[in-house]
């Protein structure tokens, strides 16, 4: 039996002579959690990388001690994104590792010039994930990246969580590398990204206290619209919500409405929604019908009333319908009149329904879009008053 010694020698040689090529322990890596892209001087690109300091980010888990800062932010410059990232290595003591990057923030300046290089780099690179959130900021990205925002230890994580739990507000689309490259690569669609901005909403102790606090926090609200790879416009909060209907991202949303009788407000939370977009093609005219049905909860009623819930619901339903309709019409108005940009992908709906007519209209779609008739029908049903079995009655008649 010579074969066993031979095999063991081969195995031994294989294991010892190959060494540990390609082995990089997790503690030899600089884990980037958020990155910002800005325009630098002379057409250069500025990369701001937020890198986690694991020992500080995870309190007692290891042997702590040190600066107390959970992150280290560094800025590097270069002609291209790749060069800038490589330049980071000049002063990073560990290899910069992108596998755990959660957020890419693009400044508005860059976005307006075109983000084709960003899309290319972040989809081509094998370390980056397609589930990385991509946002546009109106400020400098390098101002936003180092800001300590949210409850999480790492700001990148805070922004990540902001996306995950944003449906409750429904004011910004969930835009990740996947949806961006899809919007960019597909025919007759245009990409969109969420907008993030700094607002002084946090409170730090022992300093002058303006009305809304003194700590800048990253706020996720609004949508940046692109024509091909160039940013052309922005949607504000209500228009954004209208926009979310079209990309199918409204799960729950809180709608504040004015109570018609008496002084006060009510809040409605949307629960089950169905949104149907029906393309029509008659006499060479493209038009769309939107049927939106929603079942909602009454979550707040700030006005005491003598009415029963049935009466209240019949009173509130038309107001809710009007509000949602207004959202969508504001959006359509902006898209059709102001930007003349089919960001909501009506072309794909039309193409799917009428492939036979698509060739007739595809070349003129951008010209046709502003004049398309889009009819919105909203029907809302409020069914659930939550825990109160009877409406709050006025104490004194």
């Amino acid at each position, binding site marked *: 039996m010579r074969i066993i010694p031979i095999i063991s020698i081969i195995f031994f040689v294989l*294991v010892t002579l190959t060494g*540990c090529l390609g082995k990089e322990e997790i503690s030899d890596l600089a*884990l980037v959690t958020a990155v910002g892209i800005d325009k630098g001087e002379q057409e250069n690109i500025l990369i701001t990388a937020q890198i986690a300091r694991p020992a500080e980010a995870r309190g007692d888990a*290891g*042997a702590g001690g040190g600066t107390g800062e959970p992150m280290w932010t560094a800025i590097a410059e270069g002609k291209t994104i790749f060069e800038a990232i490589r330049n980071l290595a000049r002063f990073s003591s560990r290899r910069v590792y992108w596998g755990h990057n959660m957020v890419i923030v693009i400044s508005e300046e860059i976005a307006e010039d075109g983000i084709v290089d960003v899309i290319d780099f972040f989809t081509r690179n094998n370390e980056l994930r397609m589930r990385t959130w991509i946002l546009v900021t109106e400020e400098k990205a390098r101002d936003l990246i180092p800001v300590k925002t949210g409850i999480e230890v790492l700001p990148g994580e805070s922004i990540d969580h902001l996306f995950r739990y944003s449906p409750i507000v429904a004011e910004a689309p969930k835009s990740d590398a996947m949806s961006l490259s899809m919007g960019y690569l597909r025919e007759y669609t245009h990409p969109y990204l969420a907008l993030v901005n700094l607002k002084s909403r946090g409170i730090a102790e022992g300093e002058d206290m303006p009305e809304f606090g003194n700590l800048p926090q990253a706020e996720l609200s609004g949508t940046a619209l692109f024509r091909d790879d160039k940013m052309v416009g922005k949607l504000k909060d209500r228009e954004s919500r209208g926009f979310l209907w079209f990309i199918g991202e409204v799960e729950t949303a809180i709608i504040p409405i004015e109570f018609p009788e008496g002084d006060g407000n009510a809040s409605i939370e949307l629960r089950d929604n169905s949104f149907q977009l029906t393309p029509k093609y008659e006499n060479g005219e493209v038009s769309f019908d939107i049927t939106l049905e929603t079942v909602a909860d009454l979550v707040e009623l700030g006005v005491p009333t003598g009415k029963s819930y049935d009466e209240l619901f019949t009173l509130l339903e038309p107001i809710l319908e009007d509000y949602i309709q207004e959202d969508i019409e504001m959006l359509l108005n902006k898209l059709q009149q102001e930007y003349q940009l089919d960001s909501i992908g009506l072309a794909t709906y039309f193409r799917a329904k009428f492939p036979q007519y698509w060739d007739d209209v595809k070349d003129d779609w951008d010209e046709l879009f502003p004049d398309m008739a889009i009819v919105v029908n909203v029907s809302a049903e409020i069914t659930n008053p939550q825990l109160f079995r009877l409406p709050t009655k006025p104490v004194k008649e």
Partner: protein
Amino acid sequence: MQLEEKLEQDFFSCLQQNVTEIESILGSPSDLVKRDFTIVEQVNLDASLLYIDGLADSDVIENTILRPLLTNEMNESITALSSEQIKQVLTKKGLQVPSISIVANFNDGIDAILAGNALLFVDQYKQAFSLSVQGWETRGIEEPQSDTVLRGPRDGFVESIRTNTALVRRRIRDPRFRIQSMQIGKRSKTDIAITYIEGLVREDLVDEVLQRLNNIEIDAVLESNYIEELIDDSPTSPFLTVQGTERPDKIAAGMYEGKVAIFVDNTPFVLIVPTHFWTFFQTSDDYYTHYTTASYFRFIRYIAFIISLTLPSFFVMLVSFHQEMIPTQLALTIAAGREIVPLPVLIEALLMETAFELMREAGIRMPKPIGQAVSIVGSLVVGQAAVDAGIVSPIMVIVVATTGIASFAIPDYLASVSIRLIRFPILIASGFLGLLGFATTFVLLVIHAISLRSFGEPYMAPYFPFNSRDRQDTMIRKPFWAIETRPADVKGNEQRAGKNQKPSPNKRRKTRYKR
């Protein structure tokens, strides 16, 4: 004269010559008892009784051999009778020993003495009587140390093969229960018995077992593992293809499933063949508790198996090669723990595994009070101090501890040790080659396991090859009313339970109120 030549001789007719020869063969040991006396007073026939003190029961000898022979007056003169006739006279009138046989040469005579029989020589006869008076100190039947159960019988095998076969026979009152005996070991002459139920067992299986046992040439068999290693299908594999157990109920259950049990004298561990991989994850408890609980426990054990086999290698692979596969939060926690650890993950894992194995091995062999001290000191050193000193990361301690505990959750201790052994090649391969190494070694292991056979049965059956009928008692245990058939290895008589055994009120009402 050589010993072999001496053994070949037939007995002499002179009593004194026989006794001297036996004493010279055995070297006049101090425990050889020789009792000379005369029987049948009229003729004063000389007789001599030889036995080994401690193997033969002297009380029995006194009461059933000496007293009847010395007090009974035998009327007939037996001088002229042949051995066979003397045997009849002695058996019918004189001796009260359960079994008497006649031996004619020194070889058989010595064997009889060494087996604990008493050898009775009568002057002028060229034959001797071997009287079975075996009786030596044995351990009583106790609860087995391994394979303990919460519910179920608490008797375990002992060192006496006769007691052991009786323990099994008490569970199988089937006339087709068969025992075949033999002796293995040139010098030890260890009694071996194979048992099976005829009609359930495949006949070629019995032949195969007998053939493998007969091929054994060894000087001594001290424990059933000697037999196990000599009849193993895959002697170089880390997987066990023969199962040993201390529990009579396990052996009985195996025989009802058409398996063959191999009893070895002087050990409480009885072997059962063929053995499938999955049987190492089954305990007797599985059959003595509710089937849902039993299936759940089995599920836990399979998880324990996967963990004890792969967890450290999986961890090492992720941390040193595939950081992108770790969820971000966890990656940060791991990185934080490793921040001041000076060793590569692989070395760290091997270090901790070594520390754990040391603790386990030290704890097992030590007397109980010291064993506890070892485990306390060990867990303090390895658990807390090593982390505080920054030698290992806290997550590695968790990984190794979980792996260790998981390996203890595998019921068969020897199987769990063999899994622990396989773990190291996988660990080293993943530490050097990442996912590639992990996958390669794991696939090699699976290929190897599938290629194994245990006495003609595929080792991984009923999954490889797939047999849907036998699945009723592998991953889960179906309730007894749902397992109607025996496993597929059983030949003939496949039905083990009647149809429609599921208890239900409707069925009862039908019979009770039938008018």
